[in-house]
């Protein structure tokens, strides 16, 4: 397969992505590209294919056809363990519900990605705590996820997603379960932290107020994407 040339400076690029689940077409020729340090909102109605697009870009789901290149490498040429290593070390993830491990303390949760990459406990928790300070949740370090509020838990999850200093942060409805004030604070902290490390953020959301924290938006409808910046 010949990959189209990614736009200059693009870190993650996808073109002509197609993905079907049985009779349902989730992606039908979608395209995407993002630069380092850029926050791009992926918008669209429920069932439009925006989460499938995120899962394909993150290497969680393999598209039926199309091309995805990350930092000049074609994802389709990587094997499972290479893709998995990429997700562990270069990508970060935040979901609607923090998905913290309930048995671990907050600081252990944040340190977990570093521990999985082989960093020693003391060093991992030191780095984790510095990220918790930036997200203003360092006072929760010894608490379990069940003992903190939804907004606090989501900030812990954002700290965890950034602890490996990922080059791409994937956020799927990161404020979907929060009230307006907590949601805004999470978005402020998330985008500030990502910009300070020049990480690219792929932000899936159906909320305009959340998308307003992005630099531009890509609209997905019926599995096809439209990059508004490049059209208007």
């Amino acid at each position: 397969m010949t990959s189209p040339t990614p736009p200059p400076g693009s870190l993650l690029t996808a073109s002509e992505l197609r993905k079907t689940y049985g009779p349902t077409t989730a992606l039908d020729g979608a395209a995407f590209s993002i630069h380092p340090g850029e926050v791009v909102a992926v918008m669209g109605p429920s069932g439009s294919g925006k989460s499938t697009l995120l899962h394909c870009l993150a290497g969680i789901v393999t598209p039926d056809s199309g091309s995805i290149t990350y930092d000049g490498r074609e994802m389709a040429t990587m094997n499972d363990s290479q893709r998995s290593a990429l997700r562990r070390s270069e990508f970060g993830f935040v979901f609607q519900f923090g998905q913290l491990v309930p048995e671990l303390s907050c600081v252990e949760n944040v340190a977990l990605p570093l521990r999985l990459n082989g960093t020693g406990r003391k060093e991992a928790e030191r780095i984790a705590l510095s990220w918790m300070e930036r997200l203003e949740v360092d006072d929760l370090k010894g608490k379990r996820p069940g003992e903190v509020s939804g907004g606090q838990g989501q900030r812990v999850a954002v700290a965890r997603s950034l602890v490996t200093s990922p080059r791409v942060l994937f956020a799927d409805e990161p404020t979907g379960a929060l009230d307006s004030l907590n949601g805004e604070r999470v978005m402020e902290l998330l985008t500030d932290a990502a910009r300070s490390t020049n990480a690219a953020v792929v932000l899936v959301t159906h909320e305009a107020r959340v998308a307003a924290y992005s630099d531009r938006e890509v609209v997905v409808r019926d599995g096809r994407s439209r990059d508004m910046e490049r059209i208007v």
Partner: protein
Amino acid sequence: MSIGHTLLGLLESGPRHGYDLKRAFDEKFGHDRPLHYGQVYSTMSRLLKNGLVEIDGIEAGDGPERKRYAITEAGVTDVQRWLATPEKPEPYLQSTLYTKVVLALLTRRDASELLDTQRSEHLRMMRMLTERKRKGDLADQLICDHALFHLEADLRWLELTAARLDRLAEAVTAR
């Protein structure tokens, strides 16, 4: 709302008399505010003067002469430009946006493109307000929040309309 552009758009499907234009306008867009005859004739004279419509025929009758108007090439271009240009995001845009969507459907243009362009314009404004809010004091934050909530309401309407375009197209073309 631009009455001139709306009347021009209605003329795209074929020449009409002033009276027919008023009736079509009232039926599709004037539920709360029907047009006065005076508004129709003054608007048509302006469009005629600007070369956006031309007289297609005059019928003599017992009463005053009845002029039939047809849209010119320049008129079609003018409607196209109006539909493709997003509205400045501000409160109470609904009637203008609704008119644009219906006219786009009536004239077989891409209404979803119009909605996408408008969404992008709204988001551009929301980004500016969000940035101002982040840097501002509490008063700034509250003022920006008020504007943001209004823009968000418009955007929800745009999304809902986008999801109902097929049904709306059926409804407006069936009338």
